[in-house]
């Protein structure tokens, strides 16, 4: 089974614009997207990203050791989204930006901290898929949380749907 993530271009550009805004003390901004799971039984599943919620300025905690440290209030809001998304198979995807060109992946801090988030979402929103999206200026990577393997698994393909299309794909198709 393979997974593809799709995001409308208008939303993608709005997310980029928001994540680029400077914060008083955080080096990076964070937000959460809803990801609607489609056709879970088919060979190829789709996750359609929609409904972006930035973490409010006041919900960041000063921390020089990481790009962004978000507090309990931000996590409560994300947990509520996981709860509310049960009926519509909407999962929660943590998103942030590495302000660089080209392919981007997890930093050392990302690899340490981000896997801690989706299990909490998955415990509440069991029918949905939860995960992480990391964007660069012109590319993106994503991971979905596998409840079987209890880890984040890379999503091989992200498509920005709009004019123009953008396809972030690391592998041969089919």
């Amino acid at each position, binding site marked *: 089974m393979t997974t593809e993530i*799709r995001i409308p271009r208008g939303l993608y550009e709005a997310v980029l614009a928001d994540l680029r805004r400077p914060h008083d003390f955080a080096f990076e901004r964070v937000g959460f997207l809803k990801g609607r799971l489609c056709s879970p039984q*088919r060979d190829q599943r789709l996750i359609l990203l929609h409904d972006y919620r930035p973490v409010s300025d006041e919900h960041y905690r000063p921390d020089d050791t990481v790009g962004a440290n978000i507090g309990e209030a931000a996590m409560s809001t994300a947990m509520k989204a996981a709860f509310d998304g049960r009926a519509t198979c909407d999962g929660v995807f943590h998103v942030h930006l590495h302000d660089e060109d080209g392919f981007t992946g997890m930093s050392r801090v990302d690899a340490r901290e981000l896997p801690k988030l989706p299990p909490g979402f998955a415990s509440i929103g069991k029918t949905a898929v939860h995960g992480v999206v990391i964007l660069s200026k012109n590319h993106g990577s994503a991971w979905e949380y596998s409840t079987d393997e209890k880890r984040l698994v890379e999503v091989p393909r992200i498509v920005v749907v*709009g*004019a*123009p299309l953008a396809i972030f794909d690391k592998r041969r198709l089919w």
Partner: protein
Amino acid sequence: MSTERFKRQSFLGANSQDQIARTVIGVVGLGGGGSHIVQQLAHIGFQNFVLYDDDVVEDSNLNRLIGGTAVDERSMSQKLYVARRMIFGLQPQANVVGVPSKWQQDPSALQRCNIVFGCMETLLARSELEVFTRRYLIHYIDIGMDVHGDNPPVIGGQVVLSSPDGPCMRCVRFLTDEGLTDEAARYGDAGDRPQVVWPNGVLASTAVGIAIDLVTGWTRKRRNFDYLVYDGTRGTVKPSLYIQKREFGPCPHFPTDAIGDPRFTEL
């Protein structure tokens, strides 16, 4: 694939061939319009195809079926076979999923597409395909031609782009209640409508041009909808009068949260 083959289209952008190769294209209907589209896409370098047609080649198709031959007619080749032959003749490494049925009977492969070309005969069929593409965030490009009147006859046609975050075919008034009612009154029977190769070629080429711009962004126009009207008598393709100078807000027929698999409310 050698870069020599595509060097004449390098103006499309530095990464254009890569984006073209990664895009998954669906073509629903492999008749007069769809066969043109498939041929052009194969020439340009698309690698990933999902094709739908449940029909075989008949003599009456050969005035316009690109790639179809008299041998195909005698052996009742599937139109799907003709399309695959065209693709593999140019792109031997292509991935082609061919479905010998109406798309509604087996839509799973269509969901993989990033752009779907609709080359069907009825407004209802177009409407249904647009609903599907909107659900799963897929660009939809529709083409069709017709001949009206007989003193003299007038050739008309259209190319419509319906994108997930843009106005739909109802918003731009290509699909209307009047048109659907009129079609239903004829029991949706397309009948033996006149069909000829050169208008199909104009419409298919225009549609493929729209798709190339979506994939490469080479014109930088960033256009997420279009409705082009073909006048075969004057030899023109122009934006429909309705969309000229009109601003469109969010599409009321396909709200942004109405995406994904159907959602039911238990009552």
